[in-house]
């Protein structure tokens, strides 16, 4: 009885086999995405402003199973840096709920998200309009279902607009995953786990300016061009959805 396990545990071998199978599927030329979308099709987006009462501006975004809530506080007096500065400060923080991922407490290691959110937004906000003060952006991921950062960034720019903060333009963001030869837009968490490379753009559509671009993995120039075109087109459409959400809120209130 030496080999008998003391407690029950799921078979590791089975899981490994399943993973390999999935990886093989992703290697093929033609496969169907788990949610039945086409390769160039984004998940349906649901956006709402005014999700949190206490904040000066807030927004909720739901892209498929990815659910994010962003609250913006301020502009308020800088407590940390009391010294004089001509421009305002932007302070971003991204956190995950403990139940955001299938395995409890796994989403907490995304420390770089805060700084990436900061980089994506700071180019869009007119910081000169509120000297000596700070704007705090707090993003909370309720459920992490893939493409978290693009959703956070789009949602945050909506919350900033809701808070009445001067911006050059709305920031919309979309990511693309690379699988061998095929490009897949707006990947889910499962697809992100097996991707060969990822590409994310944050874009100000009316100004035609990119505020941030992230690229991981091996990419050929032609591939980058293709991904870029795909992303910019999706960003443009996403910005329209965001805009109509703001208009709706303005007319209702």
């Amino acid at each position, binding site marked *: 009885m030496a080999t008998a396990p003391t407690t029950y545990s799921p078979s590791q071998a089975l899981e490994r086999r399943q993973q390999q199978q999935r990886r093989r599927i992703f290697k093929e030329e033609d496969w169907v995405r788990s949610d039945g979308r086409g390769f160039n099709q984004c998940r349906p987006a649901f956006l709402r402003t005014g999700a949190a009462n206490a904040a*000066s501006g807030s927004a909720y975004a739901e892209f498929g199973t990815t659910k994010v809530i962003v609250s913006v506080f301020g502009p308020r007096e800088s407590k940390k840096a009391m010294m004089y500065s001509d421009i305002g400060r932007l302070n971003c923080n991204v956190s995950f709920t403990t139940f955001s991922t299938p395995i409890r407490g796994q989403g907490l290691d995304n420390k770089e998200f805060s700084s990436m959110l900061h980089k994506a937004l700071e180019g869009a906000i007119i910081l000169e309009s*509120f000297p000596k*003060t700070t704007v705090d952006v707090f993003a909370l991921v309720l459920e992490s279902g893939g493409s978290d950062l693009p959703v956070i960034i789009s949602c945050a720019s909506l919350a900033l607009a809701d808070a*009445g903060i001067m911006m050059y333009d*709305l920031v919309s963001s979309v990511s693309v995953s690379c699988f061998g030869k095929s490009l897949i837009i707006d990947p889910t968490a499962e697809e992100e786990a097996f991707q060969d490379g990822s590409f994310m753009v944050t874009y100000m559509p009316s100004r035609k300016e990119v505020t941030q671009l992230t690229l991981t993995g091996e990419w050929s120039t032609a591939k980058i061009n293709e991904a870029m075109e795909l992303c910019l087109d999706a960003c443009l459409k996403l910005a329209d959805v965001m805009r109509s959400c703001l208009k709706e809120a303005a007319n209702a*209130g």
Partner: protein
Amino acid sequence: MRDLQVTLNQTQRVRLQSAIRTLQELSSTSSSSAVAATVAVADVIPVNLEDGILKGHGTSEVDGQLMATLCGVVERVNKLVYVRALRARYKPEIGDIIVGRVIEVAPKRWRLEINFTQDAVLMLSSMNLPDGIQRRRTAVDELNMRSIFEEDDVICAEVRGFQHDGSLQLQARSQKYGKLERGQLLTAPPYLVKRRKQHFHHLEDYGVDLIIGCNGFMWVGEHIETGENDMLEDQENQLEKDGNSNAKPMGSQDEEKTFTPLETRRHICRIANAVRLLSALGFTLSLEAIIDTVKLSFSSNISIKDMLAAEFYVQTAEREVQRRVSSSKKKA
């Protein structure tokens, strides 16, 4: 105050919707130039740049087009085009009367929270001293600052001006300004408060003072005669007496002074609820509207707590419709 949640039943919902629709129709007919008034960030504002327009707040020019940098309503005043943000913080102007809360007692100054992007500063030197004598402020005055205002006190003051670095200076150079006691502080979105000649109101019928601060902070409290408002003086005298080491214990007189009759308390709560209700409905907070709501609640026998319930919520909305219809008829 978006946190007021009312649960309406079916008929109430229908009544409220029809009231809101009438209000919208009224506002769209009254302002004939209702052309795509709301804009989002980076929307193009349709203007003729050759007219020599002035670009105001919340706009910027990109590629020969005027773009909004805020979400809100486009306002045009002669040649000036600007965007009025729907949900923004209070923007002070010189001479505004504001209500604020002391958050810090700093050297020679108090810091106040007034719903502005920065804390406001009330200097000891821009305040009338309790003894009323114009003189240099001494170190002793500075040490006694906490006897005038402490942290968390609610204060009423006037906007004096801006400093070169954009921070806000207040002044309180009259008896009517100063510490507010025995009442309630209410907060509303600042855009609901219009600037008027008079922001201090004494409601004689109720024995209540109402201060409508331009920053959206409002004070409802027991009426205090300005002539008798020598509370500060008393404190000062008390201090001197303390110095003479004959501080007498709190007498019955002092107790009477800090006592508010139950009737007045009820009136304070009623007026406060009227303000809460109006701001939840998004109606302009004018004295007339507040008094009218209070009177309506009296005439229809609504108890104080029921003023925030569904039935009175709908009633107030319908009342506002009536008022606007009658005023538009008068004009016609």
